[in-house]
C-alpha cells in the first residue's frame, strides 16, 4: 500500500505517493524527475546514489521512504549550480575529473560532507574518507587532485 510523503529536496517540497519501503532513489529520479543521483547497485556498495540527508551522506538506493521523514535532502544538483558552484564542483571541472561520470554523485557528495568537517586533510585522510566508493573508469588520480584542490579552496 502506498502512503503520502512530503519530501524536502534541494529546498523545495514535493508530495510523493509511494510504498514506504521504496528506496528514496526512485522518488528522486521518477517522482521528482531529477537527473541525479544514479542507480549503481541497489546495495549501498558503490555510492552512485549518494545524497545528503540533513548534511550527512546516505545511500538513497537503500534508504526507504519511511526513513526520510522531515530530513532535508540535498542532491548533487542542489549542492551547487553553475552560477554558485560548490568548490568540489569547481574543482571537478578544473581537474577534468570524470570519464563516464556515472559515479560522480558518490564522490562529490561524500567528499563535500568530509571537507565541511575536516579542514586541510592529508592525502591519506582523503583516501580513507572516500573508501568504498567505486569508479570503474579509473579516475582515482583525478578525483584525488580535485578533492585536494577543493580542500584548499575550502581551507
Amino acid at each position: 500500500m502506498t502512503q503520502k510523503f512530503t519530501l524536502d529536496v534541494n529546498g523545495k517540497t514535493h508530495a510523493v505517493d509511494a510504498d514506504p519501503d521504496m528506496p528514496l532513489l526512485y522518488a528522486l529520479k521518477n517522482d521528482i524527475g531529477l537527473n541525479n543521483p544514479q542507480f549503481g547497485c541497489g546495495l549501498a556498495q558503490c555510492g552512485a546514489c549518494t545524497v545528503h540527508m540533513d548534511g550527512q551522506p546516505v545511500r538513497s538506493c537503500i534508504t526507504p521512504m519511511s526513513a526520510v521523514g522531515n530530513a532535508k535532502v540535498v542532491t548533487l544538483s542542489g549542492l551547487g549550480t553553475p552560477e554558485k558552484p560548490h568548490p568540489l564542483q569547481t574543482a571537478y571541472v578544473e581537474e577534468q575529473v570524470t570519464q563516464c561520470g556515472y559515479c560522480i554523485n558518490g564522490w562529490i557528495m561524500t567528499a563535500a560532507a568530509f571537507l565541511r568537517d575536516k579542514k586541510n586533510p592529508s592525502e591519506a585522510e582523503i583516501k580513507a574518507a572516500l573508501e568504498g566508493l567505486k569508479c570503474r573508469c579509473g579516475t582515482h588520480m583525478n578525483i584525488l587532485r580535485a578533492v585536494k584542490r577543493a580542500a584548499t579552496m575550502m581551507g
Partner: protein
Amino acid sequence: MTKQDKPHTFSRRAVLAGTGAFVVSVGAPISLGTVLGMKSAFAQGVKPPLVPEQLSSYIAVGNDGAVSAFFGKMDMGQGLYVSIGQIVAEELDVPFKAVTVFMADTRTSVNQGGASGSTGIQTGGRQMRMAAAEARRVLVEMAAEKLSLPADQLTVTDGVVHAKADASKKASYAELIGGRYFNVQLEWNQQIGNALYAPGKAKPKDVKDYKIVGQPIKRSDIAPRAFATEPFVTDIKVPGMIHARVIRPPVAGATPVSIDEGSLKDIPGARVVREGNFLAVVADKEWDAVKAHDKLRVQWSNAAPPFPSQEALYDHIRKAPVRKAADEKPVGNVAEAFRNAARVIEAEYEWPFQSHACMGPACAVVEIKDGHVTCYTGSQKPHFVRDGLARTLGVPPASVDGIWVVGPGSYGRNDADDCAHDAAVVAKLTGKPVRLQYTREQGTGWDPKGPASIHKARAALDASNKVTAYEFVSKGFSRIDVQTNGSQPQDTLAGHFRGVPLRVNDNFGVPAESYVFDNKRTAWETIAQFLERGSPLRGAHLRDPVGPQIHFASESFMDEVAHAIGADPVEFRLRYLRDPRDHAVIKAAAEKAGWKTRTSPQRQTGNTVSGRGIAYSQRNGTTCAIVAEVDIDRRSGKIWARKFTVAHDCGLIVNPDGLKHTIEGNIIQGISRTLWEEVKFDNKSVTSVDWLTYPILDMTEAPETIDCVYINRPDRAPTGAGEPSIRPVAAAIANAVFDATGVRMRRVPFSPDRVKGALS
C-alpha cells in the same frame, strides 16, 4: 547523384535562409531542433541523404558560421570529441569554439564504427580530417567564384576566406554556405564502421602548420556532469513509458517451464512478458517492476549445471579440444631450435574471466510508434544497435533510430547492447515505450565476459645464453563468442533466449611486439564455451580484448628469460627488440623512473618489500612501456602498486590533456584487473554479482604517482590511446613483485590470499 566537379550546395527546392531549417548552436549538445531541422531538410529535399559518400554527412555550416561535425563514433569519457573538434577546426581554419561535435546518433551520422579498438582518432579522426579539409577546399572555390579571384590567391582565417594580398576582399563561410548543406561527393571506400574512409579532393594541412591540433583543450562536458544538468541514458523518459526488468535463470541454460503470474497479484499493474524463453516483467512504476522481478515465481527446467567448479577452470582449458587455431608470423624452425637448445626456459600463465562490471547496470529506452523505433542506448556502437533492432523487430534499418546517451561506462562489448535488444522485445510485446535497466546482479553476472585463458611460453637458449627460439601459445575461450557489436540477434541474450540460430565465432590473438629471435612462433587456440546458448560466461571484447592476458604472459616471460640468463630486464628487451620506437619508449620509461641496471630479484628482509618491473607492448600502431613500482606486505600478501612511469607513443598527439587522462584511466583499470578482478562461478552460474563478489581497485589502493612521458611524433599519423597502456600493466606489476620477492606470480589476480600463499 552524380559526382560534382564544381562545388555547390544542395538547394534543389529551397535555400534555407535566416533562421532556417538548419540551425546549430555553439557548444550545445545535440538539440532536438537540430535533428528536427535535419529531418525537415531531408523531407524538403534540401539535404543530401545521410550516406558515407556525401560531405554533408560529416560537416555543415550554420547561418552564423558555426560548424557542426557529425561523428559516427563516440566518446566513452576520454574527451575524444574534443580531439575531433580540434581536427575539424584545424582543417577548416575556424576557431575551435566554432565547432560542435554531434556523436553517435544514427539520425545525424553515418556508421563510423562507434567506440572500437581505440580507433576514435586513428580512423574516425582521419575521416573527419579529410571531410573538413574537403569542406575548406569547396568553400575556398566558392569564394574564388564570388570574389572573382583564383583559389590559389585565397586563404582562410577564422572562417573567413580572403585574398592573401588584400584581406578586405573576403567572404565568410556563413556568407558562402551558411544554413545550406554541402552537396559534394566523396570517394567512399565502400566500407562502414572503423574502416570507413571517404576523402575528397583536398589535401589536408601540413602538420607543421597546426595551431589547434596538439593543444591541451579541455572538455566542456564535465560541468554538465558535475552540476547534473544533462541526462544519462538512465534519465531518459518518454511519455507513456513503462518499466521493465528481465528475469534470468538461476541455473544457466535452464528455461522457464511455468510462471506463476499470481505471485505478482499484489503489485499494481505488474505483469509478465514472454517470448520463447525470453522472460521479463513490466509495471507502470519502476519500483513495482523491481518488486515484480524479485517476487515472480518461475518453475525452471532441470538443466544440467553447465559449468565445472571454479578450481577446475584452467585444467578444463588445458584439456579441452581445440576448436580453432592460428599461427601468426612463424619464423625459422622452432622445433629444431628447441631440440638443439642448451637450456629451455618454460612457464605457463593463467588469466580468469573478467567482467566489464560497469558503474551501473545497462539501461535502454525503446519506443515503437507509428512503425518507427527509437532506441536510447548507452551502447558504444549505436549504429550497429540500430541494425540489430531492425533484425530483432523485423523492420527496415531506416525505421530505427539508435541514439547514444552517455551511460554507466562501457569498456567494450558490455551489457548495453543486450539491454537495448531486451527493451525492444518488451516494447514490441507490450506496445508501449519501455525503459529497462538491469539489476546489479545482471550487470556483473550476465554481461559478456573477457575470456579466461592459459598461455604457454618457452625459450631455447644456446650455451652462450643467446635466445635461439621463442614459442608462445595462448589457449582459451573465444573473445567473440558474441560479436563486438549488437547488429545481429544471435549475438544478444534476447536472441539466445528467443531461440534464434546461433553461430560459432573464434578469435584470440598473439603478442604485439618486435622481439627478433632466429626462430619464433606465436599462436593461439580457442575452445568451445561451456554453454553455447545464454551463457553468463560468453566471451566478448573487454577493454583491449585479450591484450592484458596475452601480454601479462609474454612480458612476464621475457622477465623470466632475463632472470635465467642474469640480464637486466630493460637491457634484455633492448637486446632483442627491433623497432626503434619500442626502444624509445622503454628507454624513456626507464630513464624517467630512474631505472638502475641490475638483475632481479633484490634480496630484502622485513615485512614490507619493494620492487620494480618493466613491461612493454605495441597496439595497432601505438607503443607503450611501463615501469611499475610496488610495495608488498608479506604478512597480508597485499600489494600496493605505488608508482607507475608510462612512456607512450601514439604518433602525433592531438590533445595532451585528453591523453593524460586516458592513460591514467588505463593504468588504474589495469591495476584493478591485475590485483583484484576474477569472475567467480559455481556449476550453476556466475556468482560474481556485485562489488563484494567482484571487487575492483579501491581509492585507498590508488597509486601515489602515475608519471607519463608523452612521445610526440608529428611525422606519424595519430594512433590510438584508449587501450594500449592497459596492456602491459599486469606484467609490469608481476615483474615488480618478482623483483621484490623472488616469487613469480603466474595467475591473475594477485589477490592478497594468493600472494600470501605464494610467499609462504
